[in-house]
């Protein structure tokens, strides 16, 4: 026996790759991210027709079209509410959400907190390139302070949003980070996020080679990234995770920041429970109409 005893996947990564050829700029970090997603899905082994992939608008939001899953390239900043609706209406689907830092933390920023607290069982993958890529290089909420862009000619005056700390502070139960510089590691965290029962968040440092900063490119990631597992980080310690998350923008940590060892019930589980309680109390449908007639 020359390979480990891990069960072999029924589906291969190529089964999740669509016929559509990506139109991203050559060298874009998103190429590595979609490959990692194919591999994570192959490891999970759900057939493509049982997967719904929702995105907003942006270069990164093109991802659903490059997969064979059901895709919804929706509205800028609105991927999370749509994905939650899909999961609640069709609990049997595996629901993935993807988008950019602008999509998720600027126009769509208000939805993140609620997705976290509702704890719907979806996986949110943000391709954080610290820029608005699709619209040609404007400041994004995660752009570092001082960044010169077409909308910050003399350098940005604003502090960057910290996506890791943001979701941890709202109580997210699974928070991880990856980079296409370590595709194996990225595929692993995406797989772990999908397997986690509840809302899971993966921030991917996915460089924009056209409008991004040179020192944030994949080659630099390769040289500077630090694996949280190798640092001996305990992913069940939320406070330690928050301590490490504070280094966002200064150090590149990869792997799982936080994974709740005792995951709370998901929104779907709570709904099911409520439906059971109510179905015992509720009058038969035929009598609901009578109630209106009585008043």
């Amino acid at each position, binding site marked *: 026996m020359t390979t480990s005893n891990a069960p072999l996947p029924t589906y291969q*990564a190529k089964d999740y790759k669509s016929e559509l050829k990506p139109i991203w700029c*050559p*060298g874009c970090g998103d*190429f590595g991210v979609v490959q990692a997603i194919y591999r994570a899905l192959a490891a999970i082994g759900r057939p493509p027709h049982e997967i719904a992939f929702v995105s907003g608008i942006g*270069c990164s939001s093109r991802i659903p079209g490059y997969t064979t899953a059901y895709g919804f390239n929706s509205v800028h900043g609105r991927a999370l509410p749509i994905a939650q609706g899909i999961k609640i209406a069709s609990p049997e689907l595996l629901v993935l959400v993807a988008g950019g830092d602008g999509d998720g933390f600027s126009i769509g920023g208000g939805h993140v907190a609620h997705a976290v607290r509702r704890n719907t069982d979806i996986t949110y993958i943000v391709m954080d390139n610290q820029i608005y*890529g699709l619209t040609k290089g404007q400041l994004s909420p995660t752009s570092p302070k001082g960044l010169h862009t077409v909308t910050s000619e003399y350098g940005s005056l604003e502090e960057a949003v910290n996506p890791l700390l943001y979701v941890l502070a709202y109580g997210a139960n699974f928070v991880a980070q990856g980079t296409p510089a370590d595709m194996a590691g990225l595929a692993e965290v995406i797989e772990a996020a999908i397997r986690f029962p509840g809302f899971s968040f993966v921030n991917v440092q996915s460089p924009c*080679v*056209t409008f991004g900063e040179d020192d944030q490119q*994949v*080659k630099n990631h390769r040289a500077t990234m630090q694996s949280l597992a190798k640092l001996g980080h305990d992913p069940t310690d939320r406070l330690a995770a928050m301590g490490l998350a504070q280094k966002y923008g200064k150090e590149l940590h990869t792997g799982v920041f936080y994974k709740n060892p005792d995951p709370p019930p998901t929104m779907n589980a709570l709904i099911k429970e409520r439906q059971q309680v109510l179905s015992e109390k509720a009058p038969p449908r035929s009598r609901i109409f009578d109630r209106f007639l009585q008043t």
Partner: protein
Amino acid sequence: MTDKTRSIDLANISLRDALDLAVLVEEEAKDRYEEFADQMELHHNPEAARFFRFMLAIEAKHESRLAERRRGLFGDEPRAVKREMIFDIEAPEYDEVRANMTLRQALDASLRAETKAFEFFEAAAEMVQMKDVQDIFTELREEEREHQALVRQEIDRLPPEGPARDDDDEIVAL
């Protein structure tokens, strides 16, 4: 080396699995060159696209030769090594290309890819226990050396480097 494979015990790999690994390494490189050629065509860089198609043909030939050998030795025996277990062993990394890259830059990217494949098979040959597997990895290492020579030859034939194309690729906003 370990970041290039997952769940493969290279030290104890069998001849069949080693051949399957070799086929997949070439398949991965072939697919990547095809993607790069498509990208270059889409971004109006026919020179780099042509070169990537040339490399694609070389990898495809190598892949089919190895696959034939595997079939000859092991017939239709199922494969234990899967594509999901390997990561960019010979395939150039995605960040190696740019829309405006020159032909020389495309050749350099390919040379780096052939070099890393050479290093992979060299390390693998040192690691394995079985003689027949060691022989195959050594043979593959030498083939990667030949590929490097081929790319170097192309580099030497190039005229002195001109400036990179500076056309901005238009991204269409939605």
